[in-house]
């Protein structure tokens, strides 16, 4: 009989690639944790990594992860903390080799087993899949992937918790994956530690909700929290979240003592509704969670108890994230000062548009914002303010086109406005804007049986 723990603590260490560099170290040293979960992959990240890998086959993973591991590995090994991270990007094996090299450098040879999860990368299989009738229709537009096939840069299926569980069961202490769901990095450890079956739908839903709460790091523990934000204490020292789970699927969200931020029903609720679709069906590869069954209760200072979560069986599909080359865009800005700041910015926009028109340039889209007046709230905010009193307004104009030429010409029409447009203009220190390649995202579904996750172990 395997003995099971009463509670398991999974710490959230990174909410995205670029999150606070101090967080992982603080999570493994600030108090007891069993697992450290780190999420690195946003939708566009995979295409950036694919580009890096095409230039250098040893790259294509989140390089910051290696620096982080160098810092935390001695503690992780000493305390027996397990790490799950989707830092592998489009090259999980190379990422694992880099971590192994760091482990050897730190004198930890023979003391660390790394699990590598692959099988999510569909780029090399796309033509075969399309030929066999998997047309990977865009979930938003219904168009088949065939329409943009020659511009595809990366294609990855979202794997779930199962391969993470397998890697942990086979003895991996650090599990490095490619495109595994953010939630699977938390659910996997809980399924492994408590021995949850892969059809224990309520528990799988509970582990998924736990993962959703901590997958954005401090965004559930006081970060980006609108509720009572002015009084959230010591944000400079914000504590990242920890799931303290029990075998029955209930769990508490907590943080280490002597850290800042706040964990209360309001902060956790804000994170629960973040990026939410239909709350009755939060679909992952592992199961379907019903967010309308979640019960929250303050169970102590900086401790929220989460219980009652119901789940439904997994679907027979996996989501696929395809990145493809879309076209070009550029954004130019100028700042206009009082008096009549907004009027001047509006006049400059009219002049710019006429000049572009006179040049015969056409764009798929042209978008003007007056930052400081209408950029985030549109016309809704202007009703409440004395427009004539605004000290300055930033004119921000963006264009988008399939071809680079009109976008490039647009970037040369901003600076002249400084001398040949409305007065009191500044803020051009950054120079001419650069045309930027747009890599767009194509969401699709694929039959689950077409994707075979694989797990391998690397000894250091």
């Amino acid at each position, binding site marked *: 009989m395997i003995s099971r723990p009463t509670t398991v603590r999974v710490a959230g260490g990174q909410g995205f690639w670029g999150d606070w560099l101090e967080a992982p170290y603080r999570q493994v040293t600030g108090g007891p944790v069993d697992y450290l979960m780190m999420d690195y992959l946003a939708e566009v990240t995979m295409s950036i990594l694919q580009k890096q890998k095409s230039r250098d086959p040893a790259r294509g993973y989140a390089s910051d992860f290696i620096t982080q591991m160098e810092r935390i590995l001695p503690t992780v090994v000493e305390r027996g903390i397990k790490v799950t991270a989707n830092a592998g990007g489009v090259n999980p094996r190379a990422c694992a080799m880099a971590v192994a090299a760091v482990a050897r450098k730190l004198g930890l040879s023979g003391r660390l087993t790394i699990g590598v999860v692959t099988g999510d990368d569909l780029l090399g299989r796309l033509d075969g899949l399309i030929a066999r009738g998997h047309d990977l229709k865009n979930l*938003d537009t219904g168009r088949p992937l065939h329409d943009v096939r020659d511009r595809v840069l990366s294609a990855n299926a979202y794997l779930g918790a199962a391969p993470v569980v397998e890697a942990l069961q086979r003895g991996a202490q650090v599990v490095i994956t490619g495109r595994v769901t953010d939630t699977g990095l938390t659910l996997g450890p809980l399924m492994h530690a408590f021995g949850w079956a892969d059809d224990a739908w309520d528990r799988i839903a509970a582990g998924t909700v736990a993962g959703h709460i901590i997958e954005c790091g401090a965004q559930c523990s006081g970060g980006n929290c609108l509720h009572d934000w002015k009084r959230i204490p010591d944000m400079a020292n914000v504590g990242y979240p920890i799931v303290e789970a029990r075998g029955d699927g209930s769990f508490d969200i907590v943080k280490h003592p002597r850290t800042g931020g706040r964990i209360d029903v309001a902060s956790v609720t804000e994170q629960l509704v973040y990026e939410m679709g*239909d709350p009755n069906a939060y679909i992952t590869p592992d199961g379907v969670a019903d967010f309308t069954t979640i019960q929250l209760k303050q169970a102590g200072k900086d401790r929220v108890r989460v219980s*009652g979560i119901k789940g439904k069986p997994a679907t027979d599909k996996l989501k696929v994230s395809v990145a493809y080359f*879309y076209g070009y865009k550029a954004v130019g800005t100028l700042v206009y000062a009082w008096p009549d700041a907004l009027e001047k910015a509006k006049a400059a926009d009219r002049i710019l548009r006429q000049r572009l028109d006179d040049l015969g340039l056409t764009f798929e889209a042209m978008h003007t*914002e007056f930052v400081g007046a209408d950029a*985030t709230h549109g016309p809704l905010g202007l009703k409440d303010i004395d427009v004539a009193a605004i000290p300055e307004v930033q004119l921000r104009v963006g264009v988008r086109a399939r071809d680079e030429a009109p976008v490039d010409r647009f970037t040369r029409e901003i600076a002249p406005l400084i001398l040949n447009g409305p007065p009191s203009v500044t803020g051009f220190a950054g120079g001419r804007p650069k045309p930027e390649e747009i890599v767009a995202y194509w969401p699709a579904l694929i039959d689950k049986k077409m994707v075979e996750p694989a797990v391998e172990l690397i000894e250091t």
Partner: protein
Amino acid sequence: MKRRLVDLAHARSGDKGDTANIGLIALKPKDYPILVKQVTAARVARHFKGMINGPVERFELPNLHALNFLLHGALDGGGTVSLKTDAQGKVFSTALLRMEIEVKT
């Protein structure tokens, strides 16, 4: 009397492609029924007229005293395609909090 949503609720938003979501959460559970009654999908669509190109869907989460709105066609294509400052709809929620609703005194 008229009250602004910012006095009755807090909110957070995010994106899924060209759709922005707004989770609207009652500050006090007793005010949740007022939100359910007055902050309808149709009312939210009128509030954002000219700012979004698609329909508005609403879901209820009585367990969290929250409503979830999906604003389709809100992000100029969304993600990397969008030319907007708020390409990922991160602060769309705050624009909803400007809405005024009728509250019994």
